């Protein structure tokens, strides 16, 4: 019994250390978020006067009210939702079909195409801004949401394709062959049998592309000049003026910007968790 008592103590210490480390990590990762929230509800007059406090002595929703009613933020949000949603949707459809082709078919030039797609991922975006601007300008695609969607889609398709391909690789070919013998065409087999099984992959790809587009700043800043086509990361900069930074409103906008992304992940999280652990255990 002494032995089991000692081992019980050992187990407790072992798990306590585990949870402590996880808690420390979570605290570290989430602290900026907490600070975002804290500053967003701190009244402007005590923001600098109270010193460093974990929570202000009084709170206000004025910053939120201002951002929602008196600034262009709702418009920026809408732009961001349109751009990120469309990019995620279009990219995932293209990536699903391309990934399936890479996973299932042997065709001439396959290796070259894969290599080219990898190469696109190697350049820093800054290098490509100028040529992309020169290409999009005559087409009337600068200063437009469509232009942003096209550029984001083009940049996200390669990685999304490889992501989808890895999910398709995990699904045995026998399944669609069985479906084809049962009476499906290949496309029907893909749609009715393979795609439902890759939902976790689809969710992961959607989530990845959505967040990438949601938080993209460089292209949004360079390709769009008017306020009407600005996305929210660009909009955030409007709180920085030459003489001051309006932290309260900026943070309130930041918190609001988290909402769509959180909602989106809430929607797909069921599939996402399956997706990220797919193949980890024998099905």
């Amino acid at each position: 019994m002494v032995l089991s008592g000692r081992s019980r103590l050992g187990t407790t210490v072992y798990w306590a250390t585990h949870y402590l480390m996880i808690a420390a990590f979570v605290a570290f990762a989430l602290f900026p978020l907490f600070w975002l929230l804290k500053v967003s509800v701190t009244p402007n007059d005590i923001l600098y006067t109270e010193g460093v406090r974990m929570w202000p002595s009084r709170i206000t929703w004025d910053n939120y009210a201002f951002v929602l009613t008196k600034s262009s933020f709702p418009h920026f949000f809408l732009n961001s939702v349109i751009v990120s949603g469309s990019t995620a949707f279009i990219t995932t459809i293209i990536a699903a079909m391309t990934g399936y082709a890479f996973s299932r078919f042997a065709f001439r030039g396959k290796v070259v195409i894969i290599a080219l797609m990898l190469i696109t991922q190697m350049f820093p975006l800054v290098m490509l801004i100028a040529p992309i601007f020169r290409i999009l300008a005559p087409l009337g695609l600068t200063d437009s949401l469509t232009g942003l969607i096209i550029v984001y889609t083009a940049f996200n398709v390669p990685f999304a394709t490889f992501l989808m391909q890895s999910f398709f690789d995990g699904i045995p070919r026998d399944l669609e062959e069985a479906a084809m013998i049962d009476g499906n065409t290949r496309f029907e087999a893909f749609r009715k049998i393979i795609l439902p099984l890759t939902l976790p992959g689809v969710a992961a790809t959607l989530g990845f592309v959505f967040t990438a587009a949601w938080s993209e700043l460089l292209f949004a800043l360079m390709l769009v000049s008017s306020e009407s086509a600005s996305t929210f990361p660009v909009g955030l900069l409007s709180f920085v003026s030459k003489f001051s930074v309006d932290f309260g409103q900026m943070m309130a906008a930041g918190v609001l910007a988290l909402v769509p992304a959180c909602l989106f992940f809430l929607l797909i999280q069921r599939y996402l968790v399956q997706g990220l652990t797919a193949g980890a255990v024998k099905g």
Partner: protein
Amino acid sequence: MASIEIANARKSYGAVHVLHGIDLAIADGEFIVLVGPSGCGKSTLLRMIAGLEDITSGDIRIGDDIVNDLQPRDRDIAMVFQSYALYPHMTVAQNMSYALTLRKTAKERIAESLAGVSEILGLNALLDRRPKALSGGQRQRVAMGRAIVRKPRAFLFDEPLSNLDARLREQMRTEIRKLHRRLNATSVYVTHDQIEAMTMADRIVAMHDGIIQQVGTPIEIYDHPANIFVASFIGSPAMNFLHGTCIKTDTTSAIRFADGHILPVAPRPGLYAGQEITLGARPEHVAIAAPETPGALPARVDLIEPMGLSTLIHVTLAGHELKIFTMDRPAFAIDSTIHIAFDIDKTHIFDRNSELRLPPVIKAPEETTKETSGANGT
């Protein structure tokens, strides 16, 4: 149900030739087993019949139709895969009725077929389960059910028992055979397991390197293998092979081994003095003999494997390792010398260069052995 006819079917991937002109006629209701080692082209041939692989040249006919260019779904065949390939997101009932649903069969008809088939296969209690909640054996049964429920023109099986444990495999082997009797369905069954081939087939098609080596009933193939490959592949424990040179007088033929020992063999047409030959003897056709027995040769005991019902003795003779099958329980010491004798009438002689079997003397014209009739000459 329908017959299947394959005429000069070839398959190549670029410069790699996988199948070199396959000719095979499968009768309506016949159970054919394609057997051979990995890479012999048996699965490719099956997939060509299914329409999952293109045919490089030649024709495949199911019933009266040439199906070369038909999609798998238009061939009216059913296939059971090694992995079972059950749709994970569908229940057993949905899995089994999927093909019928696609064919827009009336719901009552589907329910009727489903009830009939699940009764035969004992799946009644499992119809609402998903595949992941089933054991290997049950999954296998569902895969069978999915094929049967459609009443296709032919069944194709791609190593369907490979993923089962030995006992379940044996049980399913019997069940598939019984099912075949019941449905009398044209079936093509691919396996690398020669025991499955022997026990299940109406006719075996032995394949190697993309060529059909021999077609025949299991017993024909066992007793009259066309060449060294078939002789070595079919039968467990495998046939013993001893290399030597033919010596001949006017009246007798014999094989001389490298160590000088001589063994008389039954005369065969085509056997000539100095010919390099291989003697093939199944383990049950080699016996332990008294030293004074005519033709008995000394051999060293290497290993004794008791198997309960029988015993397998490993010996070395003239540098060749042999296995001897006996129903006795001998108590030889390892490394001791014993004498063994061959059942001369049942041993086979193969030409070492062509690897073909030299058939024994033909006693009457109608007794022509069948083993070469299906063999492909390419």
